[in-house]
């Protein structure tokens, strides 16, 4: 294939379709933000109550709400990629897209750009609610917030692309695999508790998940058990793992696309 140049116009078209969809039916906004808003409110009250039973209330709120917000951000990014892809499968638009000059790389970029927009909106909304209602301050994490977000952002995109590739390969019915994946991963990622709480054989899974390095580091910072050297190593491992997953899932999606080209699945995708 000699067509290698990506077109911003075509990536923008994929993004724009989602903007039109959201504008035309605001219920999409509800499905995008309702869960994360409810998560913050629910966990805000739970942590406030649990924190009041102990001594270090501020730290407890910061740890739990910080975890909820950062994991909510990852989930939003993953769901952002997946729902953008699903919108095209639900409206049987894949054949129109792939019969147009749109390249597979451009399509994936379009999914990611849409997801970034959704993820940032979701993050800001969660921070606003947590700050106003529970006095949560994300900046208590300090400078490390940015690399944390970066690792989780890349990991979220990787999961989203992986789930979209699964749906692309197995058919629209496979979307049900995509919704609970963040919940499953949260068990191993030490989002709500230290990884050391897991049985030894499950800690092996945690070690290969970038998110576990972020949440272990976040707890270390907020509980004043900070070892800067170790933190940097943790973040480097998290970042390297995220990038590796992104690369692997990207190639997986492209491979599924090529498989579908070969087997005629694009034209008859919705009957799979």
């Amino acid at each position, binding site marked *: 294939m000699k067509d290698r140049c990506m077109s911003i116009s075509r990536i923008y078209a994929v993004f724009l379709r989602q903007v*039109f969809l959201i504008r035309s039916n605001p219920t999409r906004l509800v499905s995008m933000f309702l869960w994360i808003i409810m998560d913050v409110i629910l966990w805000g009250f739970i942590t406030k109550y649990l924190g009041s039973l102990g001594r270090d209330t501020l730290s407890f709120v910061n740890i739990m709400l910080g975890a909820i917000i950062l994991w909510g951000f990852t989930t939003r990014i993953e769901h952002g990629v997946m729902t953008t892809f699903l919108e095209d499968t639900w409206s*049987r638009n894949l054949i129109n897209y792939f019969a147009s000059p749109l390249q597979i790389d451009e399509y994936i970029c379009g999914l990611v750009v849409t997801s970034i927009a959704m993820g940032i909106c979701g993050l800001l909304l969660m921070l606003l609610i947590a700050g106003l209602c529970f006095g949560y301050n994300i900046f208590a994490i300090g400078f490390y917030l940015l690399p944390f977000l970066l690792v989780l952002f890349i990991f979220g995109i990787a999961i989203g692309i992986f789930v979209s590739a699964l749906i692309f390969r197995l058919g629209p019915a496979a979307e049900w695999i995509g919704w609970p994946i963040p919940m499953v991963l949260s068990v191993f990622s030490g989002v709500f508790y230290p990884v050391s709480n897991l049985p030894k054989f499950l800690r092996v899974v945690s070690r290969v998940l970038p998110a576990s390095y972020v949440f272990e580091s976040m707890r270390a910072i907020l509980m004043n058990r900070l070892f800067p050297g170790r933190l940097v190593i943790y973040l480097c491992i998290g970042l390297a793992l995220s990038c590796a997953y992104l690369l692997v899932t990207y190639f997986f999606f492209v491979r599924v696309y090529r498989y579908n080209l070969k087997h005629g699945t694009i034209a008859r995708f919705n009957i799979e």
Partner: protein
Amino acid sequence: MNETLKVVGLVKEYDSFRAVDHITFAVNQGEIVGLLGPNGAGKTTTINMILGILEPTIGSIEILGKNLKEHRTEIVKQMNFAAVYAQMPGNLTVRQNLYVFGRLYQVRNLTEKIGFVLHDFDLDAFANTKAGLLSSGEMTRLNLAKALINEPSLLLLDEPTASLDPSVANLIRERMKNWVAETQTTVLWTSHNMYEIEAVCDRVLFLSHGKILLTGNPRTLPAEHGKKDLEELFIGVAREPLSFL
């Protein structure tokens, strides 16, 4: 004559089933060629391979002198399609759909161009209507408006008038014929309506079991094979393909 589309030795196999079996044909600039055949003959498979959404097992497709596999994006910018099984997404308005696809095809002066195609296909009144609320005829007009938005050199129409009433189908045929006469667009057109094929096509290719069995002028071909009209010839090809080999 300039060959817009050149298909050589095209084969598509699914496991042991051969859907398209070594077909070779060319379509010249400004020509409307009908691709005919019974259900399962390989028409849509052939169209999908020319669109680039299905990879041939063997064979080559050249469009505008370039190999499709190597120059897909560049070529596809200069072609388009409308098919009864590939409707515009129903959850966007007519104008939004045309805008998104105009962007994908990198159409210049897009807003102006959308105005033209909306007018050409009598869709002005539906510009802000969601495509899912359109009638079959209006939806077909939208699919065709999208198919012409980039002024393609090669247009693939897979049963474009299926499910339309005769009056709307006639209007669509006239519009497409005028368009081709004005722009010298090359068209590959599949249909099960033999009257339509006779009315619009310069040449037809009869496909059965993935092979091209007959080719020629739709107005003279039936007589050449001792049949009274194209429909009788079609039935003969569909029921007794071996007698035409």
